[in-house]
Each structure stands twice: as structure tokens, then as C-alpha cells.
């Protein structure tokens, strides 16, 4: 099949890799504009306090300080999903990462020194740091305008009849799971530059992964028109969902630039990155599930308690995706899902690769293993019995078209030697294997009215193809895959394609990098725009070659006669001729691809994605029963990728996702004590090092999705989704204890073993 293609299915190196390998790539931290000032933010001293007074006069006297701003200098406009987050806090602070004041100065050191001269008088208020306690009547109120600390968001989904399902169950499992705080730790810390031009238009150099949403949100909060804001995306030092929301520091940066009349850069220190950026959404999940005597799932019931933190960013919206793990990962006729979301004085949660799915999958897949054991089935056989198949519509109305889950399960199990008996080992070190699968959108996700992406294909008279895509490169390799798609469709080589993707004044609209959608959505947009360009080229060439358009095709830069490929002409030659001919013409085509999907209704039903991705991970672990230390020895990942457009980059996405999943499962834990991050360094917040990575085997199951570009599905988030669950199941296999909270720390393992 892959022989059909000259660019698709090839291990094409990333187009931006040479610049990154030589230090030439420019991240926001590397950019300096003439006259640029440096901004620093004064963070709150208390997790919950009234701001009685702020005196900035001393700070303003410091030579080199150009402006000092507080909430008084800003319009009364909030940011955030619920518009509850003032860029600079007005009367009170609600978390230790609250922005109280900001300084712009000629150097970063002066700005930092000035912060120490801003005098803030606080009146400390009692804080609340647990979502369940936050909902008690006596709890201190975090947002005074509300009656209580309940966030007014509800994700309630019902399908079938759970009570009926329970009645028909031979076995029921019930558990309370606790998912913790983790953070993205992008190697490049948050950094942006704001600059106003002489017409008052704002240029933001921003690492946003959703520049057009950013433009709109920024316009709203600044009281400007979106068309007066231009977002330029320099090279981005990691995102993983962390750049999905507009954050106060970016708004503050714009205000500082406006007030100081000079460009301003704000760049976070590593400690700020740990303490003052959103986390993955922590969760308490109470879940119950049943199975009949034949091993078929009967029902699932889940209640989710979320700690939003002090403000609502994307974190509390994750039930939208988490719900899918419960309703659609395996076939289940009766589902009930409900949420309670509370404000606390903790730092707030945002979007992070997988978006609630790793949390939900951890619960669902733990309970799958528990049910398999109760019904006395091999966990692999049990999963296959309950897995989705093509043609299925899930309880949430998601239409499964292509689905390779069964093959993924089998190949992951085979890769890990699932049937090898490891119980013979009886020493202090035990081994075990575990499986976990995932279900995720693979063809975009219609969470906004449009899930579209625009693409423009322009071909110059040298034959250079320029793809101007709405999508963004955040390191994942999208521009390379889009270049491959464009080249394949046009019949040119990948090196003939240049991708422009980092300026909202130039590129057409796109929702942004989220929901694993770029390859699928931006890929289809590029493919169709390229197909239109090809049609135009053939129309130009046909009279020149004395043939009909349909008799021609393009391959390897030549337009040729399909019936006699010897008869051919270089395509740039035709372009040049047609360009400079009298009544000349150039090739510019566009396409806006919006997938054939629905927004979910109020009951959370609707086919939100054009296709769905499936996959399985198998983990082999070693547990030291004396120290509680878990080591992952091997991971096998088998993903239904539709079609691997670039196997090398695909492996990279899955391997990197697994590294984050291993971190989530056993190493990483952002420890908060009364709202304060207690381990804000790379020494104490333990992302995996190279020595902590196991062997990883990647298996690609190709189901050739009809709607996907050349058959592909989106898989970018999937690597991170089932890893922790697979590890937890492997730990159970090794030592016979279920750890229902992450990370699976040595102390938790020992505690569980002592209770065994």
C-alpha cells in the first residue's frame, strides 16, 4: 500500500529540526526588540487575603523602572473560561499565584528589584484547599459574588438505566480514586512579548497553541477588536496543552507595553513556571461498574469531584472528555456520569495532553481488571469481549467507523509476552504485566461552533510550493506532516514545500492545536487545497500538452500523460510560462475544512469527531516489595493510527507521550500544602530522566480511515492516556495490590502491601 506514495509513510525528518539542532531556532526568550522592556509580576503572598492597599510609589522611584501597574490601571474586564479571573487582582487574592502588581523596567534585574519595593497590605482570610471541604456551608467564600464555592458547571450524562444494569450484574466493583496535581514542565518557560504599533494595534509574540482563540480572548479582555491584534508564534519550547488558555501574564504584558509605550517581554523563571502555571486537573472519582455472568459490561456509574483551584481555566471542562472513557472506551449499555466542581485556594488547573482522559482511563481500566478477575476471565479476553467494533454507536452518540481496538489489544499483549508466567518469581523483586486501552477523538472535536482549519496553497514560478496553514507547530511535527500531505497530493517532493504557520495576519483561521486534531483537520484542509491547485495546474498544462486535463497527472515534479508517462513536462516550466504569458495566471488555492461532525447536545450526545482513535498499552514492571519502588521495564504501545503518514514522528509522539504517562503514573507529583507548591524544582518534581525510560515497542495498526487524510487519524495525545493505568494493572499483577491513587509511590506500595 505504502508503495503507492512517494511522500506519505516515509520517515521524513522534521523540517524545523536543522534550525533547532544548530541553535538557530528562535524561542520567545531569544527575541529582543529595540527599546524592549522587561516585565515582572508580583505574586500574592497569601493563598487567600483581602488586598487592603497597594503602594507602588517606592518602586516607581527606582531608576530604570518605566511603569508599575495594579488593577486600578486596568479596565474592569476578566479573563478565563468563566470570566472570573482578573488579570491583576482587585480587592482580594485567591491563590498564591494571583497577580497583584507588575513592573516594566529596562532590565529584568531592575524589574525584579522593584517588586520588592511594592508595599501590599493584606488582610489574611482563612483558606480552603480541598474541594469537598470547599462545599461545606461553613467554608470561606472564595468568589464573593457567588453564594457558595460551587463552580456553576455541570457535566451530567445518563444513558440507559443504571439500576436495571445493576440488577443484571453478576459482579459489581466500586472504588474511590484520587488523581493528583502534575504539571507540564515545558523546557521553555512561559514567555511573551507585547508590542503596539503606531496605530495602536497590538503585536503579541506568543507561544500560544491556539492563536486565533487567543486573538479573540485577548481582544475581549483588552476591549479591542480581534482584527487589531496580531499573534506571531515564535518557536515554542513545549506546550502539551499548557498554552491552550490566555493567561493573566500575557494580558499584563500587553497592558505594560501599552502604558510604557514600549515593547515588553515577560519571561518566567523555572520556579514561576512550577508555581504560577496551570496543572493537570486533579480529581476524585467515585466509580462503580458491573458485569454479567458472561463477562459483558452491564453499567458504569461515576461521580467526579474536581478542584478547579481559584479560577476556572480549562481544567474544569475536562469532564467533557473524561466522560468518553466511561461511556465509550468499552461497550456498556447503561451509564451515569455526574460532576461536582468546586473553587478552592489552590493554584488552578488547565489543559494537559489527554484532557481528563488519563484520569478517566486510570479508573475505567483498573475496574476492567477487577471485573475480569471477578468473572474469572483473562483481562485480555475480557477486554476483547467488550471492545468496540466498526459500525458501533457509543452511548454518547459517537459513531465508530474504523476501529482496530481488538487488534491493538492482541498486538500489545503479544509484544509484552502476555501469557508468560511471571508468578514463579517469589523473591523480594516481583514482576507483572498490565494492559490498558484508550478511546479518544481522532478526527477533530467539535467543541466550538467550527472545528475548521483553513489552508492556502501558493505555487510560484520556480515551482516552490508554499502551504499557508492555520495550524501551529508546537514541536509535534505538524508542519512536516502537512508538507508531506501537500507534496503527495501535488506530486512534488517534500523539500519543494515551505510551510507558513506562525502569523495570524497571514494564515487562515484554525481552532488551534488541541484534541489531537492537527494532522486530521489541517491535513485535510491542506490536502484539498493542494488538490485544487493540482487541478489548476493540469488545466493550465492540458492545452500546452495537447491533451485533456483528466488524461494528465503529476509525479515527482513532472506533469505526465497517464497513458504514456514518457510524455511529460516539468511542472515549474508550465507555471513559469503561464505566469508570464499575456493574461498571465498564478496558482493560489484555498480550502477551509470543517469536518462532518456535530456539537454535542445538552445531554452530551453527538458525533463530535469525524473518527475515533483507539489503542492499547502493555506494561511490564518490576516491584521491589521491600522498598516499594516500581520500575517500568518495557512498554508496548499498539495504536490504531488509521495510516502512519510519518512513522518516525508518530513513534516520537507515542514515545514522548508514554514518558509523560510514566511520569504521571509513578514519578511526578506537584505537592501542594495550603495552596503552596512545595517542590518547585526539577530536583524534587521528578519528570523521567533518560535512565527512567524503559524499552518501548511501537506497533501501528492501520485501519485506513475513510475521512482521514490518506487514511490517518489523530494520535498526538494518546501516548499519555493509558500508561498509568497499564502500569497500575501491572503492579497488581506483580504484587496483588491495587493502588487507587497516583502516583504509585513507594510509600503507597508499601502501605498497600502491609494491609494485604
Amino acid at each position, binding site marked *: 500500500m505504502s508503495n503507492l506514495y512517494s511522500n506519505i509513510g516515509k*520517515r521524513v*525528518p*522534521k523540517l*524545523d*529540526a*536543522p*534550525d*533547532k*539542532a*544548530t*541553535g*538557530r*531556532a*528562535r*524561542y520567545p*526568550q*531569544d527575541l529582543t526588540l529595540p527599546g524592549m522592556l522587561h516585565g515582572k509580576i508580583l505574586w500574592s503572598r497569601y493563598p487567600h487575603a483581602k488586598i487592603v492597599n497597594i503602594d507602588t510609589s517606592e518602586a516607581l522611584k527606582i531608576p530604570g523602572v518605566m511603569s508599575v501597574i495594579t488593577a486600578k490601571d486596568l479596565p474592569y474586564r476578566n479573563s478565563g473560561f468563566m470570566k472570573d479571573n482578573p488579570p491583576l487582582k482587585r480587592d482580594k487574592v485567591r491563590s498564591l499565584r494571583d497577580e497583584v502588581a507588575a513592573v516594566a523596567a529596562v532590565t529584568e534585574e531592575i524589574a525584579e528589584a522593584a517588586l520588592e519595593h511594592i508595599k501590599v497590605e493584606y488582610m489574611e482570610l482563612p483558606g480552603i484547599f480541598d474541594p469537598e471541604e470547599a462545599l461545606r456551608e461553613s467554608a470561606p467564600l472564595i468568589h464573593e459574588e457567588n453564594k457558595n464555592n460551587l463552580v456553576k458547571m455541570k457535566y451530567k450524562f445518563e444513558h440507559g438505566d443504571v439500576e436495571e444494569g445493576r440488577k443484571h450484574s453478576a459482579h459489581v466493583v466500586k472504588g474511590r480514586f484520587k488523581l493528583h496535581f502534575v504539571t*507540564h*514542565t*515545558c*523546557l*521553555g*518557560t512561559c514567555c511573551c512579548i507585547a508590542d503596539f504599533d503606531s496605530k495602536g494595534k497590538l503585536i503579541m509574540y506568543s507561544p500560544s497553541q491556539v492563536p486565533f482563540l487567543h486573538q479573540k480572548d485577548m481582544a475581549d479582555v483588552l476591549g479591542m477588536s480581534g482584527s487589531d491584534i496580531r499573534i506571531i508564534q515564535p*518557536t*515554542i*519550547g*513545549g*506546550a*502539551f496543552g499548557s498554552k491552550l488558555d490566555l493567561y493573566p501574564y500575557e494580558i499584563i504584558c500587553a497592558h505594560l507595553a501599552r502604558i510604557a509605550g514600549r515593547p515588553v517581554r515577560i519571561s518566567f*523563571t*523555572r520556579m514561576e513556571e512550577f508555581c504560577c502555571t496551570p496543572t493537570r486537573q486533579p480529581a476524585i472519582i467515585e466509580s462503580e461498574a458491573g458485569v454479567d455472568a458472561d463477562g459483558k459490561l452491564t453499567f458504569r456509574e461515576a461521580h467526579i469531584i474536581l478542584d478547579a483551584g481559584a479560577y476556572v481555566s480549562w481544567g474544569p471542562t475536562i469532564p467533557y472528555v473524561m466522560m468518553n472513557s466511561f461511556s465509550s472506551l468499552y461497550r456498556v449499555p447503561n451509564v451515569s456520569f455526574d460532576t461536582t466542581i468546586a473553587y478552592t485556594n489552590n493554584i488552578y488547573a488547565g489543559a494537559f495532553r489527554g484532557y481528563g482522559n488519563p484520569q478517566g482511563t486510570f479508573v475505567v481500566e483498573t475496574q476492567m481488571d477487577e471485573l475480569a478477575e471477578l468473572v474469572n476471565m483473562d483481562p485480555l479476553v475480557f477486554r476483547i469481549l467488550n471492545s468496540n467494533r466498526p459500525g458501533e454507536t457509543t452511548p454518547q452518540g459517537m459513531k465508530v467507523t474504523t476501529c482496530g481496538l481488538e487488534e491493538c489489544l492482541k498486538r500489545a499483549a503479544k509484544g509484552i509476552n502476555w501469557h508468560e508466567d511471571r508468578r514463579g518469581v517469589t523473591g523480594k523483586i516481583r514482576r507483572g504485566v498490565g494492559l490498558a486501552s484508550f478511546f479518544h477523538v481522532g478526527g477533530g472535536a467539535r467543541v466550538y461552533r467550527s472545528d475548521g482549519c483553513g489552508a492556502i496553497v501558493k505555487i510560484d514560478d520556480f515551482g516552490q510550493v508554499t502551504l499557508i496553514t492555520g495550524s501551529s507547530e*508546537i*514541536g*509535534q*511535527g505538524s508542519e512536516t506532516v502537512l508538507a508531506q500531505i501537500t507534496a503527495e497530493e501535488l506530486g512534488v517532493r517534500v523539500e519543494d514545500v515551505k510551510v507558513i504557520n506562525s502569523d495570524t495576519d497571514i494564515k487562515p483561521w484554525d481552532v488551534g492545536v488541541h484534541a489531537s486534531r492537527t494532522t486530521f483537520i489541517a491535513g485535510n484542509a491542506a490536502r484539498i487545497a493542494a488538490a485544487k491547485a493540482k487541478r489548476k495546474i493540469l488545466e493550465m498544462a492540458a492545452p500546452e500538452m495537447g491533451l485533456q486535463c483528466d488524461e494528465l497527472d503529476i509525479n515527482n515534479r513532472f506533469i505526465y500523460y497517464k497513458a504514456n508517462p514518457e510524455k511529460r513536462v516539468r511542472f515549474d516550466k508550465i507555471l513559469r510560462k503561464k505566469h508570464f504569458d499575456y493574461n498571465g495566471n498564478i496558482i493560489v488555492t484555498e480550502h477551509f475544512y470543517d469536518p462532518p461532525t456535530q456539537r454535542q447536545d445538552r445531554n452530551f450526545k453527538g458525533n463530535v469527531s469525524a473518527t475515533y482513535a483507539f489503542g492499547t498499552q502493555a506494561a511490564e514492571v518490576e516491584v521491589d516489595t521491600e522498598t516499594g519502588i516500581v520500575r517500568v521495564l518495557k512498554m508496548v504501545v499498539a495504536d490504531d493510527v488509521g495510516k502512519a503518514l510519518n512513522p*518516525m*514522528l508518530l*513513534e*516520537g509522539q507515542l*514515545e*514522548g*507521550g*508514554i*514518558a*509523560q504517562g510514566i511520569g504521571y503514573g509513578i514519578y511526578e507529583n506537584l505537592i501542594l500544602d495550603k495552596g503552596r507548591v512545595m517542590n518547585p*524544582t*526539577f*530536583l524534587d518534581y521528578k*519528570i*523521567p*530522566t*533518560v*535512565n527512567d*525510560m524503559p524499552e*518501548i515497542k511501537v506497533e501501528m495498526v492501520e485501519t485506513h480511515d475513510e475521512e482521514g487524510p490518506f487514511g490517518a487519524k489523530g494520535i498526538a495525545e494518546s501516548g499519555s492516556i493509558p500508561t498509568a493505568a497499564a502500569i497500575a494493572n501491572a503492579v497488581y499483577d506483580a504484587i496483588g495490590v491495587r493502588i487507587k491513587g497516583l502516583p504509585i509511590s513507594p510509600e503507597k506500595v508499601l502501605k498497600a502491601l502491609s494491609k494485604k
Partner: protein
Amino acid sequence: MNKISLDLTVNGQVYEISVSPTLTLLDILRYEIGLTGTKKGCGTGDCGACTVLVNGRAANACLILAPDAKGADITTIEGLAVEGELHPIQQAFVDHGAIQCGFCSPGMIMSAADLLNRNPNPTAEEAKNAISGNLCRCTGYIKIIEAITAVNKHE
């Protein structure tokens, strides 16, 4: 503030600069000389993004005070490629998909350069030890190890 003058060689070029002794080598490279290829990931020696070669040995530029750079021979990521031709390590990182967001790559490549200077044909284990002080959040390291061990292996 007392400034100190110092000269140092960066990528074969001698620089004479006058700086506060409180600056680090990383500050000098990025802000005084304008070589921004060397990244600041943490500023405390915990991530390896600022790794450069100091007199041929890998070191965290963020942990070296300016006066200690006096007379030193520094190689940064910008000094590896010769006349626009990628250094074999850089080429291996490109070819093996060892780069995603790229923020750790300069430090990672300099650590690899230090290893390959000492040991041209490292095993995967040796490669791992050489970069165990370089954090990467994107790749899961697998392709980085592939790249380092492939540099001097010619079929």
C-alpha cells in the same frame, strides 16, 4: 558595581568583555555575546539545557560565574556546524527524529558531543549516562539515544 574584564574564546572567536562578576557564563553567552542557542531551562543546573563545552568538557553554563570563564575555551551549539554543514551529531539528531520542541536539543547535543569526544562508539548505556543530566519533555529520549549511538556507525 565593580566590573571585571575578561577574555574568553567562544567557538574559536576571542571576546574581550567587561561584565559584573555576578553574571554567569550563560548570561554572557546569551546577553553579552548574543549567542542564544544555549538555552536557560532552570538556571540551577537541574535540566542541562545550557550545557556547553568548557575547555572540551560538558558543563552547565548557568553554574559558572563570569570570572571562571576567564581564558576559557567555550564551544556552544553554534560552534558545532562548520560552514553551514551540520555536525554529524546534529545530523543524527535530525535524521533520527530526536528533536521535537527543540528546547533541550542544544544542551543534549553538547552533552553528546562531550561523550563522543571521549568515546566515539558509545553503547546505549553509555549514551544514557552521558545525557542523564539533560531533561527532555517531548521525546521520551528513545530517539535521542538512537541518534547518539548512530553518529559514528557507518554501514
